[in-house]
């Protein structure tokens, strides 16, 4: 097992290298002058005459591949460079990445609980009222664009009812940090959760139905085990494995979704940072944010593999 995990971990490294190489080369090919993001703007302003010397000393006249190697080295030492407006990128990332992780993690947690819950109830009471409503919601949830759901929620809960703020993550005059976080996170998390639940509950319902129709459930019933125990101990535990894997597979969609949702709610996460950087042509920031998202994705797919191997002994570990 340990060997398997180690092997999967090692396989992530070449993948990250290739991605960083492509992203770096791609963005360099757009013709942005890297002196702007390697050196703090104050330094440039202080030495207008020495730019060419500076360029030489920084090695900007070296072949691209050498520059890439140096950039990567800086990155590994924690020097992410400067954004075009002069802020160190590390600082931006350090404040904004936690916000995005927080948003995605809550959405993931709630959609898992709600999606699996509704899925199981609709499987047990097939064609019942929960099943019916669930199916309608699943169809609608896949047709309405997620950002439109966000706008609708803002319109209802922030504008008409005034219960929640429509934007930002932190209020300047907040007295209780926890309540403040709850108020700001509620609507974006709800938006992301609705989208995820629509997909998850269908899977949960179908796998639960498969399990409930299998022979060992009949055996359990015929032994006289109480219904709730049949559902929970025999049905639920076996139905959840594929659902949990699907949950992991939805992480990319969740991260992609949160990029858009951050714009809807002006939520200061990594997604809106990337969006704004692209709009304003701030390439150093685009470079770093893209890499962070790719790395997050790789870590998630690594976790899917490990998780899968842990849950299902049939997965061949030497594969």
């Amino acid at each position, binding site marked *: 097992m340990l060997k398997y995990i180690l092997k999967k971990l090692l396989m992530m490294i070449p993948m990250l290298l290739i991605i960083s190489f492509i992203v770096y080369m791609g963005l360099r090919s*757009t013709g942005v002058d890297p002196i702007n993001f390697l050196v703090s703007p104050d330094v440039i302003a202080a030495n207008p005459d020495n730019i060419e010397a500076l360029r030489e000393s920084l090695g900007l006249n070296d072949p691209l591949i050498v520059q890439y190697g140096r950039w990567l080295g800086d990155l590994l030492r924690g020097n992410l460079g400067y954004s075009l407006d002069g802020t160190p990128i590390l600082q931006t990332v350090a404040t904004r990445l936690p916000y995005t992780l927080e948003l995605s993690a809550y959405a993931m947690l709630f959609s898992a609980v709600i999606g699996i819950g509704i899925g199981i109830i609709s499987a047990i009471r097939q064609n019942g009222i929960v099943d019916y409503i669930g199916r309608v919601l699943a169809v609608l949830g896949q047709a*309405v664009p997620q950002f439109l759901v966000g706008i609708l929620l803002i*319109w209802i809960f922030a504008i008409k009812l005034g219960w929640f703020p429509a934007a930002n993550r932190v209020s300047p005059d907040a007295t209780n940090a926890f309540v403040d976080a709850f108020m700001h996170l509620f609507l974006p998390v709800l938006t992301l959760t609705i989208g995820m639940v629509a997909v998850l509950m269908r899977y949960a319902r179908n796998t639960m139905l498969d399990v409930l129709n299998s022979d060992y459930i009949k055996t359990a019933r015929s032994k006289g085990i109480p219904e709730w125990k049949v559902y929970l101990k025999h049905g639920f535990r076996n139905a959840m494995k594929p659902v949990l894997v699907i949950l992991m597979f939805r992480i*990319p969609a969740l991260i992609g979704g949160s990029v858009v949702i951050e714009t809807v709610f002006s939520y200061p996460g990594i997604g809106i940072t990337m969006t704004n950087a*692209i709009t304003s042509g701030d390439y150093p920031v685009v470079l770093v944010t893209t890499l962070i998202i790719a790395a997050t994705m790789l870590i998630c797919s690594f976790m899917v593999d490990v998780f899968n191997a842990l849950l299902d002994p049939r997965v061949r570990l030497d594969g």
Partner: protein
Amino acid sequence: MSEAKTMSIKEQNKGAATSLMKKNIRKFLRNKLAVFGLVVVALMTIACVVAFIGGIDFRTPDMANMRAAPNSAHMFGTDTIGRDLLARVLVGGCYSIFIGVFCAVASNVLGAVLGAIAGYFGGKIDALLVRLSELFQAFPQLVLVMMLVAMLKTRGLGNLLLIFVITGWMTTFRMVRNEFMSLKGETYVKVCEAFGMSKSNVMFKQILPNVMTPIIVSTTTNVAYFILQEASLSFIGLGVADSTPTWGNILNAAKNLQVVQNQWWIWVFPGLAISLFVLAINFLGDGLRDVLDAKQQ
């Protein structure tokens, strides 16, 4: 003699095909949701295309009626600079539907061709293509699209189509590749090869028709997917340039909370148009899957 015999077999096959076709059409018509989907998709497409060809005016601002609520002159109201929203939703629909259909068809063709090559030849070329598809899938698709938008700099319709096609082929690729891997061992493929049929002939004329069903279904549902993708991208301001109306571009106005609060018609109508169209496409795709899936027949 032998000529006549093959003709008759061909004709028999033709006869069987038409009766299967009739059966399938009947089966499709019995599925109410699928028929609903087809009708809505057809009506909306016709309305948008007719408006577009008829040269409906979606550009000229009506200065006297900026941000006007729906009324008799402007059935859907006007947007923030006074352009007629009904015209914009219709013309925008034309662009959105075009983007959806074009990207779905092109990315599925690309995925099918690459999948056929990878699955049929196997070996190094297969390994290379699989690695490539994994690399593309290491990003959330939207982020990949955003990165390419950053690289291409200009936000034209052509660039958007290109980006969507090169980021959307992976699912079809995997499906077609797996089908080819299992089908290339079948006897009929071996027979064709033994007769000296060219490789491209075997791949595209003999094996590919057996994989068409899932490709058609995935193309249909991908239309909805790309329309939603375009809408998200345009909403965050990275889609097609503002001069070209699309459903997503019209919704871009709703980034402004003032608009969300005071001008509901600006985001409700394009939002309804997208949702209804995507819903109809999904119903249509599900219906097609039920009809075409050979395993169910």
